[in-house]
């Protein structure tokens, strides 16, 4: 649904209401806890039970509310089954207002809570109502003074997301915590550099920084897992996917390998979630980043890599570590630079080609999904724009690059026409043309292995405008699904109006 500021959307809280509060009735509890004092005692015990459950099982991986209208005597409403923590619904109605009011009284300095109590109360509160911003802020303060550690809060957020996978405040808090971790890392990185300058670099220090960078890589990996889980729990989860974008932007900036691995792992995911517009958008984002990276001149990428290293996961981008460029030696440097440029261009073509093939394949296999057609627009637009920019740049400076592009561009069209024909076959009821599919599944060319991809090898390229038109026609010719027809026609109109007028 929707979460928004004043004038802006806020369905979230109402969504919550529909999902679980409806089940809360209190008859049983009224018998059990009638006076205010009784409620007090009851709730304090429940908060302790939750804390103890986490102590007993540090591997709790999911939370939930168990529909249970009546309290049962002599039994805690906190239930731990394997790694799942459940709260019986009858007690939520007492628990939440109690911890809510306790925290607000503390915030207004009307009631004192020690640190331990604050940790317990905010934990309970946030598991029940994770958009309670102020409770996360209290935890930020506890984190700043060292009472909590970042990992603990990432864990609490992860649990809250198992029940509330969109909770905007939970995602916002995660970004803040991750920034604290990044800051720690960059502080150590800086002090290490200073020490090196003074010639005092010690082995212990090297080990420490290695530990930190391992830690950061692990955090990155865990964060991706949290995003995937939330994305599976709620389709087109805007907050989860925009968080994932933030994470790679901030924790893997310039790290070609991370972006590439993400793109590969997302392939299966999107194929299984063909309606998930946000998942596809993430793919578009990765593709754009990779292509921008690959299209930069090697010299400029080399200069920007050291600054990233201080604050992000160490770059293992082979593209960045060309000794030839780093040392600035001229012998063979030009040739190597040219090789690398060539290789990058080849990789770009490959990426575009694979993406368009994947998209065609999914559109044909799963007719009538707006997401897939929207993806096609995006990828085609990126490709179209990349091609225009490159032609433009090359004709301006007349470098050797232009020779390649000018030569290969007609070739691109040619290959485009071929893959068009390939699709034509499959449209006529045969299997997909085997050649593009094989390329489709082949791994990306390894940029380190420049011998494998010699200059001048003509690779299958993404299609041009005429090819897109024949793709649409082929869909329209054989398709009876009204939705598919509607989207195909809209795509055609988009090609004509938005893409058509451009050269």
């Amino acid at each position, binding site marked *: *649904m929707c979460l928004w500021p004043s*004038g802006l959307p806020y*369905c979230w809280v109402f969504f919550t209401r*529909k999902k679980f*509060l409806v089940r809360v009735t209190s008859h049983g509890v009224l018998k059990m806890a009638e006076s205010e004092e009784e409620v007090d005692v009851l709730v304090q015990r429940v908060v302790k039970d939750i804390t103890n459950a986490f102590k007993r099982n540090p591997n709790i991986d999911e939370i939930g509310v168990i529909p249970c209208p009546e309290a049962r005597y002599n039994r805690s409403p906190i239930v731990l089954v394997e790694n799942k923590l459940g709260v019986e619904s009858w007690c939520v109605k007492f628990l939440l207002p109690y911890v809510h009011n306790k925290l607000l009284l503390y915030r207004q300095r009307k009631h004192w809570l020690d640190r331990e109590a604050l940790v317990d109360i905010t934990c309970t509160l946030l598991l029940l109502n994770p958009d309670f911003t102020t409770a996360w802020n209290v935890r930020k303060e506890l984190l700043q003074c060292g009472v909590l550690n970042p990992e603990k809060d990432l864990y609490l957020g992860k649990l809250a997301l198992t029940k509330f996978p969109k909770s905007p405040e939970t995602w916002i808090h995660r970004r803040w915590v991750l920034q604290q971790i990044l800051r720690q890392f960059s502080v150590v990185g800086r002090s290490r550099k200073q020490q090196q300058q003074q010639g005092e670099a010690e082995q212990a220090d090297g080990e420490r920084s290695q530990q930190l960078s391992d830690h950061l890589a692990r955090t990155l990996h865990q964060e991706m897992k949290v995003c995937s889980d939330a994305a599976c729990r709620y389709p087109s989860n805007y907050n989860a996917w*925009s968080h994932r*974008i933030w994470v790679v932007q901030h924790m893997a900036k310039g790290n070609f390998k991370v972006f590439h691995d993400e793109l590969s792992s997302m392939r299966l995911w999107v194929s299984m979630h063909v309606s998930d517009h946000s998942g596809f958008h993430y793919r578009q984002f990765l593709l754009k980043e990779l292509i921008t990276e690959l299209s930069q001149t090697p010299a400029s990428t080399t200069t920007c890599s050291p600054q990233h290293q201080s604050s992000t996961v160490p770059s293992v981008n082979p593209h960045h570590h060309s000794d030839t460029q780093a040392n600035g030696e001229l012998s063979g440097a030009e040739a190597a630079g040219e090789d690398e440029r060539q290789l990058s261009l080849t990789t770009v073509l490959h990426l575009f080609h694979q993406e368009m093939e994947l998209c065609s394949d999914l559109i044909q296999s799963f007719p*009538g999904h707006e997401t897939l057609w929207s993806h096609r627009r995006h990828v085609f637009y990126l490709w179209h724009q990349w091609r225009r920019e490159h032609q433009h740049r090359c004709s301006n400076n007349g470098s050797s690059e232009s020779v390649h592009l000018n030569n290969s561009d007609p070739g691109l069209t040619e290959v485009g026409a071929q893959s068009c024909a390939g699709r034509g076959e499959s449209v006529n009821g045969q299997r997909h043309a085997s050649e593009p599919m094989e390329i489709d599944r082949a791994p990306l060319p390894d940029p380190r292995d420049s011998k494998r991809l010699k200059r001048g090898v003509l690779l299958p390229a993404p299609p041009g405008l005429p090819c897109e038109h024949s793709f649409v026609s082929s869909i329209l010719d054989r398709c009876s699904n009204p939705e*598919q027809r509607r989207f195909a026609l809209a795509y055609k109109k988009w090609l004509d109006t938005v893409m058509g007028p451009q050269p």
Partner: protein
Amino acid sequence: MGTQVKDVIIKPDAPSSLFLDKHADYIAAYGSKKDDYEYTLSEYLRMSGIYWGLTVMDLMGQLPRMNREEIIDFIKSCQHECGGISASIGHDPHLLYTLSAVQILCLYDSVDAIDVDKVVEYVKGLQQEDGSFAGDKWGEIDTRFSFCAVATLALLGKMDKINVDKAVEFVLTCMNFDGGFGCRPGSESHAGQIYCCTGFLSLTGQLHQVNADLLGWWLCERQLPSGGLNGRPEKLPDVCYSWWVLASLKIIGRIHWIDKAKLRTFILACQDEETGGFADRPGDMVDPFHTLFGVAGLSLLGDEQIKPVNPVLCMPEDVLQRIGLQPDLLS
């Protein structure tokens, strides 16, 4: 292979006329159940909740039914030392609730009830070097907050206190190939963010930076066969998204591109005839949030029983005329 169409079917017996009296009764009663469990659960956004309720009452000409003094006192007690305003007493200040509070005070023509200079300082202090705005002192960045900042300052007539050029620069980095906007650079286009960003560009006089045809196209594609609008491809239609999309279309001068009659039918079908109020979709539970956006949407569609609403600030036009604020719209 069949496709599951993501849309709703409007039943023949769904409401097709507007029950304004019922809605006014629903909102007037909502604030009175303060010890309700739900009321606790939504306290973290109370200030916005009050804004929704009061605005829809004003649009229906029923504002006098609400307790003006109590609300103004409440807002006063939510302003913090730093100048920012919180959702409720004891909560932390945030731009979201600062805007809501200023909007409410504009409805009541009593902005002076709070320390306006401090509010301006608070907003100004949240602007970052790249022109973006943090939502509060903890630093989260989002184009929603850029909107909140300029909307607050525009209502207070203090837009000159921030670096507007830089702010515009940042919002434009969040524009996507489809003409839409996301929460941060590189993020997916989303009807709610598009509303914030087009509203932002309207208030800063920069609507010429929008590719109105391209964006209008994307927004129109949000209309589903039921007439309702969704916020992104393959999402269900929703009354509140109908507002974000419709208001954005109005701002960029393309509101005539959608089927208004069908949208009206959808919005009317989301009313609850018995309790009053609007739900996100026909048959769901009503709430004040969707009630505001249902009524505001009908106003933008030209319903004459409702006061004209301003698409940028979601406030009655007569209130904005009173304070002399006329945000740009494209034609």
